[in-house]
């Protein structure tokens, strides 16, 4: 992107930096080195007794400078933190990542820091010395500047400031308002001259205290080709965002990624427009994104690089005539020949190379899949998305950097909606998407699309667990019999992966001997391990011991070791939605033969409970059979995600399930 400005630079050679933008008249919330003694007064932190530290002020500014023939993005930051407890000492060590590529770089400068302590009523100020500053070269492109402040104690105030000057316009510094500790004041300002067009995305659960926008002029001094100086005036928009008294961020279980919930603002370069130049879109709009991706060597071009598999394609065409069967055969070809290297990427390093080396990232694999689907005569296109770990997308902002994954969208003849495919998982059945991509919707990348087209990434699959057992009870409360245990959908995916990793013996140990009350498994067979379209099934003979001696009265807990014994929703309150990724179904059908001479004295009550809005259902039935009884439990969660408001009913629902599964049957020896 740096190259695109060359036309502007040829007319003017740069010299030195600009004058300060006039719009930034607003008083600065913090001045480096100007400490107020009342920041040491304990009563100002009475409300923060729980926190290990408080960010007093975090102030960032980004503007543009014109230096040595090019614009640089200059970020300045001043941060002041009050350390309240020893657990807050980590705040005094700071890492600043810096990027470098092809001669362009991010450069850190003007790093300053102080620690302030109140010693016998006197303010003692200690400087961050160069001996406290280190650089770690992580790899060829990426280094980290690290520093730690001196003499940090409980009650210290630390302060640091630095600038990062960047050649990468697309790396306009994002700003995070919220951290694990409370933040009193967080402010970010951005001055963006008319040449640059950024899209901004604000997110989080905390309100802004101020959001302002002003317009003014900035002067950049440039040198003409002949050597003469000239001041160029650019209209500049200045933004200011403030958050006040932001509470410390707290993780919750069952969320996608912290990034989705923390309060922050992200920037993406949409385009540039230099004087006497047309508007140059960087990503801009969906059409632009589509056409850029399709033209890119590491994306669209790869779709046409599948010719080397001509023979394989011909074989599939000859063997299968049905479009669905062809699609399945193509997915299997890719799945079995290219091992996913655990890297979720949207760009490919080359589909042919991946195939030949039998290993590749998600883009290598799925772009290859799309190319081959086209080769067998199907309509297939890339669909890009953001994985759960990468965070939620704002569909109204076309920001390329918010995507990190590509799937294949195949439209079968006669079908209105495209089918999403993924070939990164060895153990996944046709049409099954990895759990990590189950993150709302994917954007379809097609040549002719004039509007943005989105596909739902909701999986057709669920977490499915199905068990049946025929068991003979004995007079000591033990039993033996046959158990059939099936995992389907996402459960089958993880079960097959675990089976491969552990081998059959360890798999049986882990799943049927661990955490069970003395179960013995004298015989077992694992079935359908390689039939991905079918559940993974285990058939076992199992024995569970009873008491040492026979008992006239048996209190028998039928679901023990089969059902749910702990409510996973432990916490009372919930701030964020509960996101499972996919629905869930658990079915248990247990049949017990009573020991000879015994009869049922008391049975648990059957029950049926539903979640509001058909969000889920639990059925529990205990029914007598000839010589015994049958216990059936069915649990279903129909939705992939539940709102924070639904949390209380979800928790209560599970609590009832767990209680029902703990109930006991009373058997008595006939008189």
């Amino acid at each position, binding site marked *: 992107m740096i190259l695109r400005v060359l036309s502007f630079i040829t007319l003017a050679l740069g010299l030195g930096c600009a004058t300060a933008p006039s719009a930034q008249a607003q008083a600065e919330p913090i001045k480096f080195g100007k400490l107020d003694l009342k920041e040491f007064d304990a009563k100002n932190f009475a409300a923060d007794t*729980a926190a290990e530290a408080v960010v007093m002020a975090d102030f960032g500014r980004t503007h543009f400078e014109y230096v040595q023939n090019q614009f640089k993005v200059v970020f300045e930051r001043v941060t002041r933190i009050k350390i309240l407890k*020893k*657990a807050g*000492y980590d705040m005094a*060590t700071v890492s600043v990542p810096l990027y470098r590529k092809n001669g362009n770089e991010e450069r850190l400068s003007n790093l300053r820091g102080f620690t302030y302590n109140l010693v016998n009523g006197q303010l003692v100020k200690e400087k961050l*010395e160069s001996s*406290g500053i*280190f650089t*770690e070269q*992580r*790899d*060829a492109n990426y280094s980290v500047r*690290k520093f*730690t402040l*001196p*003499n940090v*104690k*409980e009650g210290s105030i630390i302060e640091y400031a630095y600038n990062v000057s960047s050649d990468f316009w697309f790396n306009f510094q994002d700003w995070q308002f919220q951290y694990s500790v409370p933040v009193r004041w967080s402010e970010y300002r951005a001055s963006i001259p008319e040449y640059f067009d950024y899209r901004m995305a604000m997110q989080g659960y905390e309100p802004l205290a101020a959001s302002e926008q002003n317009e003014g002029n900035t002067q950049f001094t440039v040198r003409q080709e002949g050597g003469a100086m000239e001041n160029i005036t650019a209209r500049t928009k200045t933004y200011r965002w403030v958050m006040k008294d932001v509470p*410390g961020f*707290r993780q919750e279980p069952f969320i996608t990624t912290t990034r989705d919930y923390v309060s922050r603002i992200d920037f993406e370069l949409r385009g540039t427009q230099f004087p006497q130049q047309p508007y140059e879109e960087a990503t801009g709009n969906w059409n632009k994104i589509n056409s850029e991706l399709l033209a890119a060597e590491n994306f669209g071009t790869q779709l046409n690089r599948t010719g080397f598999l001509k023979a394989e394609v011909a074989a599939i065409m000859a063997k299968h005539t049905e479009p669905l069967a062809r699609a399945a055969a193509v997915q299997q070809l890719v799945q079995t*020949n290219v*091992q996913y290297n655990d890297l979720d990427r949207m760009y490919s390093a080359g589909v042919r190379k991946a195939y030949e*080396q*039998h*290993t*590749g990232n998600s883009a290598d694999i799925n772009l290859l899949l799309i190319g081959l689907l086209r080769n067998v005569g199907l309509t297939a296109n890339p669909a890009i998305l953001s994985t759960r770990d990468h965070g939620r997308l704002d569909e109204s902002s076309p920001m390329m950097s918010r995507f990190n994954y590509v799937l294949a969208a195949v439209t079968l003849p006669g079908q209105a909606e495209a089918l999403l495919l993924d070939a990164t998982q*060895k153990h996944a059945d046709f049409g099954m998407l990895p759990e990590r991509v189950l993150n709302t919707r994917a954007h379809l990348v097609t040549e002719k699309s004039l509007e943005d087209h989105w596909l739902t990434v909701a999986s057709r699959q669920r977490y499915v667990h199905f068990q049946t057992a025929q068991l003979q009870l004995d007079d000591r409360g033990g039993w033996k019999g046959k158990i059939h245990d099936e995992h389907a959908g996402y459960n089958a995916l993880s079960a097959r992966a675990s089976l*491969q990793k552990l*081998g059959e*013996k*360890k798999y*049986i*140990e882990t799943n049927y*001997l*661990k*955490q069970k*009350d*003395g179960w*013995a*498994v004298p015989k077992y067979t694992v079935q359908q391990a390689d039939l991905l379209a079918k559940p993974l099934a285990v058939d076992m003979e199992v024995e569970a*011991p009873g008491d040492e001696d026979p008992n006239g*009265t048996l*209190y028998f807990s039928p679901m023990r070791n089969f059902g749910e*014994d*702990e*409510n996973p929703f*432990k916490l*009372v309150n919930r701030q964020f939605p509960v996101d499972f990724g996919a629905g869930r179904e658990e079915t248990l059908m247990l049949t017990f033969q009573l020991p000879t001479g015994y009869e049922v*004295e*008391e*049975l*648990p009550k059957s029950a049926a409970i539903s979640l509001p809005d058909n969000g889920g259902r639990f059925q529990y039935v205990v029914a007598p059979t000839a010589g015994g009884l049958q216990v059936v439990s069915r649990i279903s969660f129909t939705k992939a995600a539940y709102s924070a408001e639904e949390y209380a009913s979800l928790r209560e629902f599970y*609590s*009832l399930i*767990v*209680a029902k599964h*703990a*109930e*006991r049957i*009373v058997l008595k020896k006939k008189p």
Partner: protein
Amino acid sequence: MNRFSLLLVVSLVSTAAQAGTAPKYPVAAIPSALRENAHAVVRLHDETFTVKSAGQAVSTLRYAITILDADGDDHAVDQVDYDRFKSISYLRGSVYDAEGKLLRTLRAADVRDVSTTSDISLAEDSRARIANLQQGRYPYTVEFEEEYTTSNTLFYPVWHPVSSTHLGVEQSQFRVKMPKSLPALRYREKNLPTGSQVRQSAEGNYTVYEWSVAGLPAFEPESYSLPAWELLPAVYTAPATFEVQNHAGNLSSWEGFGTWEYTLNEGRGELPASQLARMQELAQRVPDVRERVRQVYEYLQTNTRYISIQLGLGGWQTIPAAEVAAKGYGDCKALSNYGMALLKAAGVPAYCALAGADRPDIQTDFPSNQFNHVILCVPLPAARPDTVWLECTSQTSPFNYLSGFTAGRHVLLLTPAGGKLVRTPVYKATDNTQFRRAELRLDDQGNATASVRTRSAALQQDDLSQVYHQLTPEDQKKQAYRQISLPSFTISRYTLKPGATVPVPVMVEHLELSLPRYATVTGKRVFVVPNVLNQSAAPTPQLGERQTDVWQSFAYLDADTVQLKTPAGFRPENLPAPVQLSTAFGTYSMQLQALSDGSIQYIRRLQMNRGRFPKADYPAYLEFRRRINKADKTPLVFLKNDV
């Protein structure tokens, strides 16, 4: 015409060359016994460590591993570490298919150069080159060749032919070449199969020590067992004389190694005048030495924090005490050295001690650098012979307490007279206690509330102490939610506070719980498990024959008393009989008693012993744990009168 024939010749030659390449490491050649339970098989491992002089050595390694499935893929990645003292001469690699046909050779682009600075460190100079030859189609074989030169001869290699679990070994050999001009190699063999002990030979100016093994099947870990590396074959080697950056030392005795460390760190204890005066004043004011040490430690904890910086010789040599005084931070060496300086100024001699933290005990009969940490040892005057141990990197550790991090193991005391091996305090089962008292109140619907007070001591309080010092009260409560395993519960009140540290530290936890549907009701019967919070896990038996001894690493004592209060009209149908188990692994007892006020008292006591038990005891061990689990889960059965 000429041109054509030339082309023809060239193409003939290249075909011939290709045809002439004999397949390497065909998978079919692997004995089937080595593939069992294996994700990968070492085809060959040929390692030579050539000592050039007391201060320089070269390591040459060639190895080939066949990857059988995706879970063996990690073996297709070769990581060669380097730092200021160690430089890599070459790193080469190739990958072969199942038949042994060369697929490709490693290119420069396949090798990443990365920093390996650990997460706990601010700065280190450790780096690595990482070569990845992973393939997606199994099986395949990788072959790596690498060489490095080191000028840090404090470390000689350790040979672990079976370097991980689920790895078969066809052949592995290890050689150390010592110049005859240097003292003999020191080595320690461990768990070697018979017949693979050292062979010595002469080769020019070198004495060659050689070990080799062949045909070792894959090792599968078992539960309740020693860590794998304690059970697998290994040869440890070490020099008699060594040199790091012109600092020569003698490693043939603990005394010698201690001398080297002591000398390297000597004269770095000068303090600024103000702190010197402060300590001297303290010496005047506090005549009791133990109390004085306590106050010095408190001063150290208040004014410093742990920051790890390991650069070059700085991995073994502390920064001066004056620098710690000025900056208020340092690593374990620096903070211990600073503590030693403060104590000296306060008139109390103390010694730094090298420790192997967070790992099992060192091999005491093989002097070598087995340490990764420094603590401070303060011998108290003879009048009250005692030793105080100080962990200087923690700002919150109680005075004279070594947590599970460094307790109960050998450390090397650095004295002017050289190194001296001593043992840090051992915390016994009766130190590592958890005493809990609970009141459990039941309503007639089966709902319950409970008030619980738990007092945890010594190693049982280590985690709680961390939680207390690191987390906010709100997060402490969340942590309690994670720790507690109950069907359904809500914590209505939670507090966690340190108790009095006599003689071991104590954490006290108060819990108010509400337990909806804690009791299950079937018809007229109500079932209540009185052991609310301390139900032991059921043991995991294994399929197949036990291969290794049983190992219990942690000795502890738990005592629980629960008073169960039931609503009017509840009458116990039975009171489970008391259980009393007494074994070499530990003792357990449980009993129930109806009290005069109508409530029922449940008392449980479990003491587990630390120890290694022969594998023949494995069934008895499982049975012991199974019976505890069963007793822990036994319910009390009540009859409701109103039904």
